[in-house]
């Protein structure tokens, strides 16, 4: 199951990158007020409103030889960032960013700065306090953000189809495969693949939520 593995890989790395990017961004947005903050927030949410294939089209151009992506790709001798795993990653990350930033931003806002201040007075550095206090307190937000990001990457295929090129074993993810099977009227295969995808996702989601439940019990809520 090349496609399944590839999909999981893409979803996993997208989620990791999203969390890494979104954390400082959300923290910054939650704890600072500055002129034009709302502009930044709107820009982050903007990729959402374009149809995925159209967004994919623009990304394709941006990643291609005439866009910034091509410029970057030339650094190691390629002509384009599209049609590669890294291209897919970039697309997924841009597309899912708001789903990850917003829950985190809300979480950070509601937690406020007080716990951090207390941790400081108890000799914890920012990094330390962040790891031991803020992150655990924001765990529900992180779980939300990660599941939304992960699931969305799993299901998303417009962008991926466009900038990935649907190359089997390379950029063909499972959602495209199911899509193709439905298009090709291979309903049986599509049902099976959908069932596998749903089953896996369901297992994963229940595992996450079950953990969260016990976290809640002991946690802040």
């Amino acid at each position: 199951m090349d496609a399944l593995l590839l999909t999981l890989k893409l979803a996993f790395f997208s989620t990791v990158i999203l969390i890494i990017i979104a954390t400082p961004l959300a923290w910054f947005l939650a704890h600072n007020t500055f002129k034009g903050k709302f502009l930044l927030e709107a820009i982050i949410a903007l990729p959402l409103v374009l149809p995925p294939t159209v967004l994919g089209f623009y990304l394709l151009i941006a990643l291609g030889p005439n866009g910034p992506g091509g410029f970057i790709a030339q650094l190691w001798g390629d002509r384009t960032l599209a049609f590669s795993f890294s291209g897919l990653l970039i697309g997924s990350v841009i597309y899912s960013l708001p789903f990850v930033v917003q829950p985190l931003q809300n979480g950070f806002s509601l937690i406020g700065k007080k716990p951090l201040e207390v941790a400081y007075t108890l000799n914890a550095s920012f990094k330390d306090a962040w790891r031991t206090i803020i992150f655990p307190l924001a765990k529900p937000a992180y779980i939300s953000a990660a599941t939304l990001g992960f699931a969305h990457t799993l299901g998303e295929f417009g962008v991926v189809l466009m900038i990935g090129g649907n190359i089997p074993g390379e950029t063909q993810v499972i959602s495209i495969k199911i899509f193709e099977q439905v298009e090709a009227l291979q309903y049986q295969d599509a049902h099976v693949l959908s069932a596998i995808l749903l089953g896996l996702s369901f297992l994963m989601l229940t595992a996450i939520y079950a953990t969260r439940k016990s976290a809640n019990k002991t946690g802040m809520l």
Partner: protein
Amino acid sequence: AMFARSHLSHADTINVAVAANFKQTLQALKTPFEKTTPHRIKIISASTGQLLQQISQHAPFDIFLAANTAHPQLLWQHIHESRDLGLDALAVYAKGRLVFFSRTPLSEAVSLEQALTNKMFTRISMANPKLAPYGLAAQQSIECLTSDTYWREKSVIGQNVAQAFQFIDSNNVDGGFVALSQVLNKDPGNISVIDEACYDDINQMALRLNNQPASLAFMTFLQSTAAQHIIRQNGYHLP
């Protein structure tokens, strides 16, 4: 890295980008091709438009099997110089056939024309005339069959011919215009083949995107009788 593929190897893998409607037929062609030549193919399918956009952004495809002739020709104009492609890079490889497929057999009581105009068939589906050649053909056929314009109000547009079929297959509409290749194993009673005079030829054109031996070999194979036999079996005419 994908462009740095070795030219020295005799057994190459080529990427064949195919319009979604021809994908199954291409799969049927894959085995004989791989048996008769040392080469392997990878099948990449999407809509013709998407493939065009990807190729123009240097997607690593070797062969482009479009569902129309306009897109490959347009592409050829843009790239033939830089890639040193002759006119022989283009070739029509199949000709689609339009049928009207309905949930219930059309009888004398309900002719095709009536199905299009009366209220018994509340909805009919077809592919998007702006995007899909089958859509355009469907539109032409209707206009050929009837002068009534009521069909416009009851038509449901699928993005491509596959969706047009799904609308019928899921019982949401009573019937619609689909490709013969999609309904080969359905009850022939439900199928009315449309007179080919009613619509322009649905010529499907292939474009070879480079001059590698494997690509050349595939183009040759596509026009071989063995291949043509399979294509015909799958519901297409030959040019």
